[in-house]
């Protein structure tokens, strides 16, 4: 007993030492670095290390106190070991943190002064684990603070408390804190404008609004070194617990500290949106396994089947042999063990010496009972104990045990490409009103479209199927009512606890979409002779697309100009035309590709199949990409002459912006 405690002590001590070293490193870095970004990052590390040290210190103190208490109680009374059942631990993951902001309109129109910019990050603490998110620079061009990180805490008990703290630090260039001497600072502040001076003064001194974030430590703990440089202040915090866990996004309230006068202030809307999921170990690990005998239902009462049973999640999986578990073979049968299951030990069988275990479930109104037995009394006892523990775990973890929630571990991938500086909403609006066909305009347009990173598809006159697939969706969970505010800030908060949907497996065979980085998604991987060569009737109206096999070597499918498509498809007419009226009176070419499914080979990286997606459009529009290659004309002849690339691109853009069109984008 003492050994384990000493072990834990030394573990924590090692962690504390590690963090102290990290903190010293961060201090040195902070003192040495000159660039603003580096300073902010270093200050963030400093904050995280300080918090961790405090947490470890307090845990150490708690352990020491517990030791002392135990010694005291042992002396005073000889209370037997408490037979409390402990619930199993689990993984808790928080992801997709989003904190909406509420800028005043005056902020947008402020011309004077620098852009008020803050660096923010979140500190998440559960038990003894503390993690920080990446740092985000926030200014009035952002409507929400988004943290992309997924944070997973591995050993959480059901009564956990996840504390989320938002730290922010003013990051305006002119007001670097600390370095200017006091007298000069006051002189400056009085000579600057009132608001600028106020900010400067606030940045200089801690002031009443900043809680002493790292100081204020009890004298037992180490004093925190004070370093010059940016300091983070606590802006908002909240605590999440088991009741907040759900397999979808929820909004939580934030408690905001600080006020408008503080330099690190940001106008928070007051809530935080995130996805909090949990995987208790009883759902992911084998809680109990061993050999069992299951009475065959119906028929001979004495016939027992020998199985190797594994208790995991909400089921007892019974395999024929133990090796099947490793080999991932399907179990022979599965008995549900969930909140509605009832398990009891039956009367002793006269023939055998051990009691039977009866497992009863309700399957749609009918009660089905499975009878299990083991070889020895100890085994029976162990199984009963395992079942009780499992029920206890499920009662403690509540909604987390209904279905397995998915936790995505962030895959180690290259850092995301640096996105260009986010312009404001106004900058993103494109206003192209010129009808000028001069080369400069078309050049600009062509360049513009190349910058756009997507595959949008022009779909105008949709020959929509009036009958579309009404088949029932895959059993992806029960639908539930949802209210969503249109402010765009808060997602649904359903009144009942929903069930999480069945996990869609990645489709093993995928005939797939071309959708390459070209502007349009009209892509046909092959030369245009293939569509013509295969003339087939139309498939049933509800399927829009079929797959076309292509040459395997092509990674980037070539685009077919609309003209070529029109001419190939014109000969076929189209079936099941939409009842839809397009104002532009298109030629009766169709949206659908009448090509058969040639083959559905398993997915390979070099996709051997692509979708032919063509869109019809008015005769004034062209849907082909100016930079795509031009596939040869179809054998049916090309009644149209192909316009020049510049004109086509201009037409493209005009088509996109023409309000008569109903834009569609492929994702």
């Amino acid at each position, binding site marked *: 007993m003492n050994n384990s405690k000493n072990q834990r002590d030394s573990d924590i001590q090692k962690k504390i030492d590690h963090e102290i070293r990290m903190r010293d490193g961060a201090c040195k870095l902070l003192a040495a670095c000159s660039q603003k970004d580096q300073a902010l990052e270093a200050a963030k590390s400093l904050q995280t290390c300080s918090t961790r040290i405090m947490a470890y210190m307090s845990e150490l103190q708690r352990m020491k106190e517990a030791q002392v208490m135990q010694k005291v109680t042992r002396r005073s009374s000889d209370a037997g070991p408490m037979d409390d059942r402990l619930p199993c631990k689990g993984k808790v993951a928080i992801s997709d943190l989003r904190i909406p902001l509420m800028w005043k309109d005056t902020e947008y129109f402020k011309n004077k002064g620098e852009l008020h910019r803050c660096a923010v990050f979140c500190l998440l603490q559960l038990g003894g684990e503390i993690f920080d998110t990446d740092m985000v620079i926030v200014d009035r061009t952002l409507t929400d603070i988004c943290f992309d990180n997924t944070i997973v805490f591995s050993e959480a008990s059901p009564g956990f408390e996840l504390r989320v703290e938002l730290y922010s630090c003013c990051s305006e260039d002119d007001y670097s804190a600390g370095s200017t001497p006091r007298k000069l600072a006051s002189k400056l502040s009085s000579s600057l404008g009132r608001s600028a001076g106020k900010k400067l003064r606030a940045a200089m001194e801690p002031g009443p609004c900043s809680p002493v974030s790292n100081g204020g430590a009890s004298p037992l703990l180490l004093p925190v070194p004070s370093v010059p440089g940016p300091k983070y202040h606590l802006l908002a915090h909240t605590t999440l617990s088991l009741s907040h866990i759900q397999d979808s996004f929820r909004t939580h309230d934030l408690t905001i500290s600080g006020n408008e006068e503080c330099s690190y202030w940001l106008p928070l809307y007051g809530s935080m949106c995130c996805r909090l999921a949990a995987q208790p170990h009883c759902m992911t690990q084998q809680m109990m396994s061993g050999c069992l005998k299951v009475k065959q239902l119906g028929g001979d009462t004495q016939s027992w089947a020998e199985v190797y049973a594994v208790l995991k999640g909400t089921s007892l999986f019974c395999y024929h042999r133990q090796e099947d578990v490793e080999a991932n073979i399907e179990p022979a049968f599965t008995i549900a063990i969930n909140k509605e299951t009832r398990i009891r030990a039956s009367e002793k069988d006269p023939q055998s010496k051990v009691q039977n275990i009866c497992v009863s479930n309700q399957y749609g109104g009918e009660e089905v009972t499975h009878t299990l037995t083991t070889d020895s009394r100890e085994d029976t006892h162990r199984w009963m104990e395992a079942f009780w523990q499992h029920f206890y775990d499920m009662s403690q973890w509540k909604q987390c045990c209904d279905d397995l929630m998915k936790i995505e571990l962030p895959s180690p991938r290259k850092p995301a490409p640096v996105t260009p500086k986010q312009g404001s909403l106004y900058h993103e609006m494109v206003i192209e009103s010129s009808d000028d066909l001069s080369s400069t305009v078309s050049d600009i347009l062509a360049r513009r479209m190349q910058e756009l990173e997507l595959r949008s598809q022009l779909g105008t006159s949709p020959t929509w199927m009036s009958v579309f697939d009404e088949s029932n969706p895959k059993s992806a969970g029960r639908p539930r009512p949802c209210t969503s505010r249109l402010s765009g800030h808060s997602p649904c908060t359903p009144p009942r606890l929903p069930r999480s949907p069945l996990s869609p497996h990645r489709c093993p065979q*995928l005939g797939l979409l071309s959708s390459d980085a070209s502007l349009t998604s009209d892509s046909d991987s092959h030369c245009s002779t293939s569509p013509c060569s295969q003339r087939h009737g139309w498939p049933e109206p509800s399927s829009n697309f079929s797959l076309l096999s292509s040459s395997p070597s092509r990674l980037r499918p070539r685009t077919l100009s609309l003209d070529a498509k029109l001419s190939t498809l014109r000969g076929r007419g189209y079936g099941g035309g939409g009842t839809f009226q397009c104002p532009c009176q298109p030629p009766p070419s169709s949206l659908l590709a009448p090509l058969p499914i040639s083959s559905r080979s398993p997915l390979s990286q070099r996709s051997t199949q692509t979708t032919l997606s063509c869109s019809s459009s008015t005769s004034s529009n062209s849907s082909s990409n100016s930079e795509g290659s031009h596939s040869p004309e179809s054998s049916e002849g090309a009644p149209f002459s192909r316009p020049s690339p510049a004109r086509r691109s201009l037409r493209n853009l005009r088509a996109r912006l023409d309000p008569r069109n109903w834009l569609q*984008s492929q994702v």
Partner: protein
Amino acid sequence: MSTYTPGQPVTAVVQRIEIHKLRQGDNLILGFSIGGGIDQDPGQNPFSGDKTDKGIYVTRITPGGPAHEAGLRMGDKIMQVNGWDMTMVTHDQARKTLTKKNEDTVRLLVTRKSLEDAVKNSMGSYPRQ
């Protein structure tokens, strides 16, 4: 789907659909197309019941694609993507929210007429307790 009154919350029966994006070279694709948006003409939407509905609708699904496997169907109206609202966004905003490069999975909330009807019918057959 009920008509939208500005300023009032929107209620809908929704289904959660989780789509794992498929990687094709440098791109992550979902396998469907969207139409609609507050900057588009809602009268041209063939899938909406209410022709003033400017929401984002699924206009086409690639058979066998990630969206199809996940249960998305043509004609579905997308209410939310990963917590972001889709009922009051421009077309481009919707597209961008769906195609974020750093996200491998999108969790959608979608609604469709058949869902509403199913709920209405099931509520109708059981007496209120």
